């Protein structure tokens, strides 16, 4: 389960961060002058990567146990 969550938020975070860097600063007037795409993009990126990290660790730990069919994808 952590794989899709991690994957989706990593992609969202990456897109927003890049967009935050390249976008016209004028659009941030409505968000009180803060480049929210950049900052919130980074937050999402970190959240997504942490989730992926957990997913990877859980996946590696469950591997030796081949009979464990209940592990979540």
């Amino acid at each position: 389960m952590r794989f899709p969550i991690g994957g989706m938020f990593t992609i969202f975070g990456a897109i927003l961060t890049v967009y935050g860097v390249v976008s016209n600063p004028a659009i941030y007037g409505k968000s009180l002058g803060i480049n929210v795409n950049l900052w919130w993009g980074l937050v999402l990126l970190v959240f997504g990567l942490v989730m992926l990290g957990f997913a990877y660790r859980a996946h590696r730990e469950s591997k030796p146990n081949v009979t464990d069919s209940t592990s979540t994808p």
Partner: protein
Amino acid sequence: MQHIALGGIDYAILIIYFVFVLGIGWALRRVIRSSEDFFLSGRSIPAWIAGLAFISANLGAQEVIGMAASGAKYGIMTSHFYWVGAMPAMVFVGLFMMPFYYGSRARSVPEYLKLRFDEKTRGLNAITFAIMTIFSSGISMYALAKLFELVLGWSFHGSIVLSAVIVLIYIFLGGLTSAIYNEVLQFFLIVLGFLPLVLLGLKDVGGWNGLTAKLATVATNAGFEPGAWTHSWKYMDSPSHNPMGMEWFGLVMGLGFALSFGYWCTDFLVVQRAMAAGSMTAARRTPLIAAVPKMLMPMLVILPGMLAIGLHASRGGFLPIGSDGQPNYNLAIPMMLAHYLPSGLLGLGLTALMASFMSGMAGNVTAFNSVWTYDIYQTHIRPGQTDAHYLRVGHAATVFGIVASVLAAYSATRFNNILDMLQLVFSFVNGPLFATFLLGMFWRRTTGHGAFYGLLTGTITAALHYGLTLPRGAVPGIKGGFLGAVLHVYPSEMALNFWTALFAWTGCFVATLLISLFTKRTKTDEELRGLVHSLTPRIQEAQMPWYKRPVTLAVAILVVSTILNVIFW
């Protein structure tokens, strides 16, 4: 009203979300081998996933939009729906009721009623529940499509078809598991999509203190004390002192007891998530884990509404004015999104709104599937078929459920009053249910006749109470008082609803008790083992360390929600 323009990046985010949602359904299609897999996720869901799905299924678009609207209309008092109207009931269902739901191996809430009482009680519950899920899913579909039409200029039909098809595909492929996994994804999306909005709004008005100052203007303009929008209990001494028109007793008993326990403890839509959990401990933990984010949800859904009305009062014209001359409170969240979020995050926020809608709809459809297949089709139409047959019926029910919700959504465009009427009738049906479960689970003497006729009595009590009373300023009709004589006038519609629920509960409780005493028991003690408290072996948790026991989490939840009530007193 001018439409909000979306950029390419906003559409990209929405499309990526759709890809993930469908991908989860596709990845899970091979897991579904039996009807148990399709309807109950093979009872293998870990507690944290079931818990987040539990809360997400409840976090439909109507909840998000409606709670923000109430936040604008009533202020922080709306938090009573969480800290009074959810926490105690969620703790109760986890600690005291889940042992019987999960332990009985019932596959649905109506099936528990069959095991505990008899077929007629189950049938009554199953049929009303099935109809109700279709209509609530249709009504929320209608609300969302209308909103997107108004705010984004999207086609009403397009929104309905798009969302219905996506939900259809992922449930059809992966059953309840797919719905649950998507609900977890949607949960995170809703939190992370709305959070920047709240943070920006708070920063803009100068934090909680700045908001308090702005809302003081709102309150005095409406003729209340300055703190009426920012204190949850202080002005509950009399209905005329607060915008909700409620006094504390009606609130605690009507909302905190009758309505809240009726919903959280007996509604299969949420209970189904806990039934899908992997073990008894996981099932008991599910509502408790769900209670943690639920407790913090007011920050995400009520606060935007409060910010919106604060800005509306201080800057003027923030919310569009509706045809009744009042601000259109339902637009609080979309207006906030458009006001603060630039292209990029705007897409994320709208995707979150879409996600909230899908999780609510998927919750309704999966619950409908199980009740239709197990409690109506397998029981009354074609019993004794193979498992593969019922799995096919489940797939067909998914299609049917979604098509029927779409039809309900379209009927809402034409017969708005009829749908209001239906919702009203359902509230009469659901109000008394908790009394039936309470007596059934904790008193072995309760009989099937008692349960069935008690439920009917409760429903009739609710209808009579509603028909003989009226909220202030309303004309007799759908708002109450349709029986001719008006015996009592309540200060607000909400007060009337809370009291109706309380009357329904009491009517059902007393009738079930009396009828049970005068009718013969049909189930022996042996048959009731695992279904009634006094005949079920205690759950052994002594080997578990104290901090892992459900009781510990339950106490922590109650303590923290009490503290929250005190902070916002």
